């Protein structure tokens, strides 16, 4: 026997799915997500979502999530009688700053930089970087790596002789790992907040 989920729980699951997939679930996916046993229930749910302004029904009946669902426009206030306001319609496809900076929320960490090895790439001592763990670096990605037991922030460069870690600071030479190289993570963004 499947239990019925509350409306809040359905919204929570849908939001999580949208955040993860950047799209709405298909019928089959929605059935699994909501533990529905019939696709009719999915139809009913989407109808209510459209009525309450969580999804937008475009030309040809194509559904898309609105800001009300993705949660970026909460400050705009409640929508009377469930009709989305013009402002909300326009804001249907906006990203939050978190989504803009973070590709994989589960794998992303903050790290305060203390060294100046990447200063010419615009990463200063005291800056925060967003590090994604478990990602394989591509050529010229900035990585946090442990080279021969030493932690470092460098460009990841693959060349004919293997892997080279290159600083963005003329004061330092490039490093070639001798014994070991562990990629801690790939830097996806840098944050500097001026007070």
């Amino acid at each position, binding site marked *: 026997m499947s239990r019925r989920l509350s409306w809040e729980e359905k919204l929570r699951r849908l939001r999580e799915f949208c955040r993860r997939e950047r799209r709405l679930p298909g019928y089959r996916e929605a059935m*699994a997500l909501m533990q529905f046993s019939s696709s009719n229930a999915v139809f009913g749910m989407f109808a209510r979502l459209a009525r309450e302004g969580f999804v937008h029904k475009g030309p040809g009946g194509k559904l898309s999530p609105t800001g009300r669902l993705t949660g970026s426009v909460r400050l705009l206030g409640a929508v009377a009688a469930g009709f989305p306001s013009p402002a909300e319609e326009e804001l249907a496809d906006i990203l939050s700053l978190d989504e803009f900076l973070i590709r994989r929320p589960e794998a992303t960490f*903050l790290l305060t930089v203390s*060294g100046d090895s990447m200063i010419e790439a615009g990463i200063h001592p005291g800056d925060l970087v967003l590090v994604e763990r*478990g990602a394989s670096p591509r050529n010229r990605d900035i990585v946090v790596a442990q080279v021969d037991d030493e932690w470092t922030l460098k460009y990841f460069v693959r060349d004919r002789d293997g892997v080279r870690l290159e600083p963005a600071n003329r004061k330092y030479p490039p490093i070639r790992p001798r014994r070991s190289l562990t990629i801690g993570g790939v830097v996806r963004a840098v944050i500097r*907040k001026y007070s």
Partner: protein
Amino acid sequence: MSDAGSPWRLDGFPRAIAHFDGDAFFTSVEQALDPSLRGRPVVTGKERGIIACASYEAKALGIRRGVPLWEARRRCPDLVVLPSDYETYSLFSKRMFDIARRFTPMVEEHSIDEGFADFTGLRRLRRGDYAGAARELQQAIRDELGLTVSVGLSLSKTLAKLASKFRKPAGFTAVEGRHLHLFLARRELADVWGFGPNTVALLQKFGVRSPLDFARRPMEWVRRLLGKTGVEIWSELRGDAVYPLEVEPKSAYLTISKGQTFTSPSTDPDYVYARLVRNAESAFIKLRRHRLRARAMVAVLCRHHYERRAAGARLNRATSAIHEAVPLLRPLFEAVYESGASYRATMVILQELENDAEEQPDLFEDRLRIERMRAASRAMDVVRELYGKHRLALGTSLYLPRHPKTDRDEKPWRRTHLLGGETERRRIGIPMLRWPV
């Protein structure tokens, strides 16, 4: 080891349920964030004086959960002792379950560091077998969070949990239907989820030596000896899943409890009572945050040697206002407090919760008084939002600073390394690495 005999089922995975269990979760989180801690004996629980979690390096030295700190330090002078950082552990926990939900929507958040995932049917979605999918989950947690989980994969929750314990840390154990008898012969009765020392003793009295012996007994025999729960465990061990995964996030609280261990034991009744009231305040804050109200309240006092005494009472109406509940707290406290005894913790449990949104009309209620209490609660919540928790508190909290502060009041690293704009109460919800770059 006894001969396992012949199997009672010949199938593979009619159900595929994985149990994943964080290996020394709290200390592993600390080691994932701070590389200088890797390979060293690390424990958490500095603020309590008792070890909450010991890393595998510390376990190798015989130091485990529940051991007093002074004893652990005596055994290992190089021990790294950290205050617990539950905020960061919770962030990791949430991520662990988010990763699991990428594989299947059927995920149960069993506790902060362990969960269940139902993979049944995923073979059709993912190429490869169930074991492959479960290993992939294990690897993703390792790659993305930098910590290991031990995974058990089998036909029921009880079997999966038994399997995840089989090899630790970073272990992987898959037991399919046709191999159940071989696996159960190699486990102890005490390892089975739900078998406490009394049950084990009882079973042994009846000549049951292993989980396999138990699973081979007739159902009627099990029912007579252990009742319905026994039959459930028996079915689960035989590979017939009885317990469903609880995939609902724990938003619908059955009870709310708040308890805290003192930094050092106390014999001062005013202090112990003040701590009890403080827990009640915290519990009511949580209650209001979830828009609930409670109809019953329990006060618990823990003695120095883990002995607990509790007393509970029903309120005459369900409430979300601490002012309505606090007059009840004093008599509850008096009922369990023994003068001269040394106490180490207090706890308040709120029960019979209901939704606070619905009106509860009652002709005999004093509307004005109730409205005043509601207003007071609202004011407390506003002050809390603006200035922090417990800045505006009940008068008994004046007894709180009476207690001498010790070095155990140390805060976790994250709380002392705030970013510009972060406050004592609110920090960015992303864990912070301490890699020296």
